[in-house]
């Protein structure tokens, strides 16, 4: 007699494997009307001390503040002073000018690699405006906006990108893998998502020591597939750690669309629900919404109400990196059709709408920023560009492997220096 379980197989179609497919491929016309764009100002704002479950609806909605009329709406409007808004605008515009110049520098052979964050500037700049300057950040490689908003000197960034003798990281790291303890900016890893549990650990330490500082981490939506992300979420939930998880959903992970990280089934913000963490899904191209969401999460964390996961819904307007050619896998029309616009333009228009800015001022600012970047570039180039001999001394290659140099590294350093003398006798 067949067991009951066997009957479950009867009269069913055969199994088939589902493999996600993005909506559009190269050459396709793009229609994003299926992406729900919530009305600005229409989302409720629960109290920062609420139970995580009270944020469930917000995990599927989209927190938006700036409306089509370029004005701020609803309970999430952070009511920032015009000076702060202008500073945010300037920081984002500087990031974009910097990206343009560094991208060109890579193309001109001044370095090996570069990554832009075009279109995603708000997700780092506006977010970090909502934190204290000594809250510890654990970024991925696409948050140059944090360093710029925290006033890290451009020339130091360029020295690092050129891997030259002025590079504070001694030419050891791939371009853009910055580190600045003075700016509470954790050293960036090339290995995805490793920073997530580390941010949680830092936040736990801060709680152990009864500190007032919190931690925040950023990662791409693609990287949420890594186990490290899930370990971080579990620890944060268990210890109610004062940490903010920023998932930057820019729709693409190199050539893989967000469906390969699970977006066909649910939102990234909704990952929070299963862990019992507060979750928010925000319009990542709306700087005011980003600010408001991060500020909410920061206030929540700082008052011992625990972690928050924020999905920043945005679009990667350019290639993944200088090694990538996005025209091979996605439609070039996507960028133009993206329904949430551009964060810099939106903040600019908002400032103009409230009478605090003008096209003329914006043009002048852009020119001044381009000059500032150019001057920093020229200055950094005096320290050399990659591959032209102006690097750190060979011995530095062996330092910092350990606190002290063991005998075998000392021997190897001698070897490296001897090889240099053979190659370039002088």
């Amino acid at each position: 007699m067949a067991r009951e379980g066997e009957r479950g197989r009867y009269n069913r179609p055969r199994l088939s494997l589902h493999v996600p497919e993005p909506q559009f491929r190269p050459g396709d016309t793009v229609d994003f009307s299926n992406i729900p764009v919530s009305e600005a100002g229409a989302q409720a704002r629960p109290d920062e001390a609420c139970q995580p479950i009270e944020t469930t609806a917000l995990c599927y909605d989209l927190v938006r503040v700036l409306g089509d009329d370029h004005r701020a709406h609803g309970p999430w409007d952070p009511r920032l002073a015009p000076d702060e808004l202008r500073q945010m605008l300037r920081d984002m515009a500087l990031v974009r000018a910097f990206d343009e110049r560094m991208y060109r520098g890579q193309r001109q052979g001044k370095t090996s690699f570069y990554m832009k964050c075009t279109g995603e500037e708000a997700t780092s700049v506006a977010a970090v405006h909502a934190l204290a300057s000594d809250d510890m950040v654990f970024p991925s490689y696409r948050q140059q906006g944090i360093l710029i908003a925290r006033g890290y000197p451009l020339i130091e960034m360029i020295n690092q990108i050129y891997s030259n003798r002025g590079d504070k990281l001694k030419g050891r790291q791939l371009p853009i893998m910055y580190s600045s303890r003075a700016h509470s900016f954790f050293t960036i890893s090339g290995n995805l998502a490793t920073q997530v549990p580390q941010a949680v650990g830092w936040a736990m330490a801060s709680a152990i020591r009864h500190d007032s500082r919190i931690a925040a981490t950023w990662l791409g939506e693609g990287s949420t597939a890594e186990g490290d992300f899930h370990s971080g979420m579990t620890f944060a939930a268990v210890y109610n750690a004062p940490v903010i998880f920023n998932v930057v959903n820019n729709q693409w992970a190199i050539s893989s669309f967000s469906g390969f990280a699970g977006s066909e089934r649910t939102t990234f913000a909704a990952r929070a629900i299963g862990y019992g963490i507060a979750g928010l899904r925000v319009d990542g191209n709306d700087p005011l919404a980003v600010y408001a969401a991060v500020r909410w999460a920061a206030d929540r964390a700082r008052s011992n109400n625990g972690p928050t996961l924020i999905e920043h819904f945005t679009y990667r307007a350019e290639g993944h990196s200088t090694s990538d050619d996005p025209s091979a896998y996605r439609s070039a029309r996507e960028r133009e059709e993206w329904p949430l616009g551009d964060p810099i333009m939106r903040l600019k228009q908002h400032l103009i709408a409230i009478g605090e800015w003008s096209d003329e001022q914006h043009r002048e600012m852009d020119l001044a920023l381009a000059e500032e970047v150019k001057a920093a570039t020229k200055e950094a180039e005096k320290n050399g560009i990659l591959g032209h001999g102006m690097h750190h001394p060979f011995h530095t290659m062996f330092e910092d492997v350990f606190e002290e140099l063991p005998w075998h590294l000392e021997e190897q350093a001698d070897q490296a220096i001897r090889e240099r003398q053979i190659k370039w006798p002088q």
Partner: protein
Amino acid sequence: MASVIGDEEPVSLSEAPVRSLNMIEAINDALDIMLERDPDVIVMGEDVGYFGGVFRATAHLQEKHGKTRVFDTPISECGIIGVAVGMGAYGLRPVPEIQFADYIYPGLDQLISEAARLRYRSAGEFIAPMTVRSPFGGGIFGGQTHSQSPEAIFTHVSGLKTVVPSTPHDAKGLLIAAIEDNDPVIFFEPKRIYNGPFDGYYDKPTKPWKDHPDAKVPEGYYSIPLGKARVVREGQALTVLAYGTMVHVAEAVCREKGVDAEILDLRTLVPLDIEAVEKSVEKTGRCLVIHEATRTSGFGAELAALVQERCFYHLEAPVERVTGFDTPYPHSLEWAYFPGPIRTGEAIDKLLGA
């Protein structure tokens, strides 16, 4: 080496039409042939589907073989290896790609504790017939997370086979053998020689594979057995044990110095062709071991120990090792790190007592 598939006779290599391929094209060809021949073969990994891989190794395979044979995966190396173990348990023959060897570490538990041990712990009931392809090695200014050579981590694990090709011809034949093998194989592709046989002279123009004799790749199916080394050139003065990019560096240095070296391309590290090693070292009495990976506990240490254990009374000098330094791969000082012609030449001089 057990093969479960393919009853057609392999084409005799001397008769098959040949064309010049680079290493990427040869790997692509091997995958294409195995997808065609064996319905159990599955190719998957980050960006390998529609896009065809960040190095283009899987280009057009999805188009040709369909989305359920060749597909993109979530960015989770632990997941990629773990599902490959499960697919193998079902009876498929997965060929996962890990985008860079530097990113294989999140998948180590699935590889080391699981794939490598299924056969042993189930007394042969379950096996993991997977081939994990991954580009490795430096020389492309990839910094510390796009340059590592972690082969010794895998050769240290019982139950894993480790293969490193050094030419397009071998890449194709070895990859086919690896896919057909019923044990888990780590297949490291030296990315610096994907497009040309780089010989360590980074400041000279790079050569493409086109005119190299080992870029002549026969069409159709052929396999090169795992565990068999290749004599790159015969010689009497010393034996060089090399694999991957370093085969070409050793060749160039020996040619330039006019040293009558015998160069063995190991091709498979585990299982090692110990006979070929013994035969050569017994003949020459001197042995240089060379790899790009860090020195301490590198595969060179294993080779040196084996040569010392088995050929001691034939040795006329201590075994020399040429390796990368015991530091992470530095970005700007990449060429100071790389075990290039100067380091190799010095070791040869020392071995020959010059």
